[in-house]
């Protein structure tokens, strides 16, 4: 990076190829519409699945739908900053920090003898009554 501020001075918008910018903006718009249509589709699928009893496949269906939603969100965010490695690094650091926070919470729980709630739950069976 040059130390000379004049080297990076502001350019007037007219210096850009305005037509190319507009074309890029429309491309971005169409990408967004596609993304949000997919989001809506997956949400509708989730609501539909919520109303259907898949028996032993319930967990599998829920996991697949959750993975679809998470994947779409991650892909959408990535598409927003795919050209900006700085943002990518920042958010990657955020993810690492968040994972560390979750790990520390679980570690703290096991130290205090609260235990792993997932393993504890295996001993019980849900008896919620649905009329």
């Amino acid at each position, binding site marked *: 990076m040059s130390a000379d501020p004049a080297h990076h*001075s*502001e350019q007037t*918008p007219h210096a850009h190829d305005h037509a190319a910018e507009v074309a890029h903006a429309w491309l971005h718009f169409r990408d*967004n519409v596609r993304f949000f249509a997919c989001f809506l589709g997956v949400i509708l699928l989730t609501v539909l699945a919520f109303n259907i009893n898949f028996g032993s496949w319930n967990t599998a269906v829920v996991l697949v739908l959750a993975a679809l939603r998470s994947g779409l969100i991650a892909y959408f965010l990535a598409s927003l900053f795919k050209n900006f490695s700085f943002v990518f690094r920042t958010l990657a650091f955020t993810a690492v920090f968040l994972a560390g926070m979750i790990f520390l919470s679980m570690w703290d729980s096991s130290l205090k003898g609260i235990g792993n709630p997932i393993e504890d739950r295996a001993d019980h069976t*849900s*008896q919620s009554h*649905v009329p």
Partner: protein
Amino acid sequence: MLFMEIPYTLTARPDTGLYNGKLGIWLFLASEVMLFGAIFTAYLFVRLGAEDGTWPNHIQNVWLGLTNTFILIMSSITMVWAWVSLKERKFNTYRLALAITILCGLVFLCIKGVEYKAKFDHTGVFINEDAMEQKYLPELKKMDAFYVAVPSQHAYEIRGHLHEQTDKELVLLPDETPKYLIDLEKKETPSPTDANASAGGNEAAAGSEEKTITIDQADIQRSGPLLPKYGTYYAIYFLVTGLHALHIVGGVVVMLYFFFMGSFLYRRNPEQLSNRIEVTGIFWHFVDLVWITVFPILYLT
């Protein structure tokens, strides 16, 4: 007087590839990810640690939640439309798209208000298991009322509108079984004789439009409106949706500023306004994505 131009308000810095506003919003969103991430992590622990039956089922109106999801998704699209219109230098289209986005945000908040009011108006009652099975269960079944067994607390929970409450008894208009709920048990269709018999039941006004049930206070473990103190789920629900609604309010306020001041800002520098709208749009997308995460975990339980 010496004026110094702030660099990179319009064009990107070569090293980050971002102009100032965009860099700022991404750093802000990173902190937001931490905030919501921490809350979702807390939710995970609380949900997994909940005792059997204590996590409420079918408390939310899924269709209202779905409508809100649709509205937010539409608003995200109109937000990008506003930005594209500015790029095209179509100011009127920009204002139209922004107005629709603002309207969507306000409608979202109104629907959220309706949902909150339903919680405030509702009362939940935990009834002792034995008393429920002996005194109230047959009646509730005839009324097709929604109830949930809470084995860990030796109780049943019913929810509805509070009609009357005295020291000795509580009169409740119970919620019906949600239409979208799958009936896992085969229900027997009550015969006309049964229907007549229910009229003489435990003060149930069968046949009338409002079917109420009277519960002795001695049989009640606890009761109250569906507020955060009623249970962990409600605390999480109001925390997450309240925080999300605050973000919506923030976004709407910013958009209102750009709507009313847009003309002035556009005349001064259209490209800068376009950048500002882009940054607002990124924030709005984030709020949308948070809702897409919140909706399944809080509504589809």
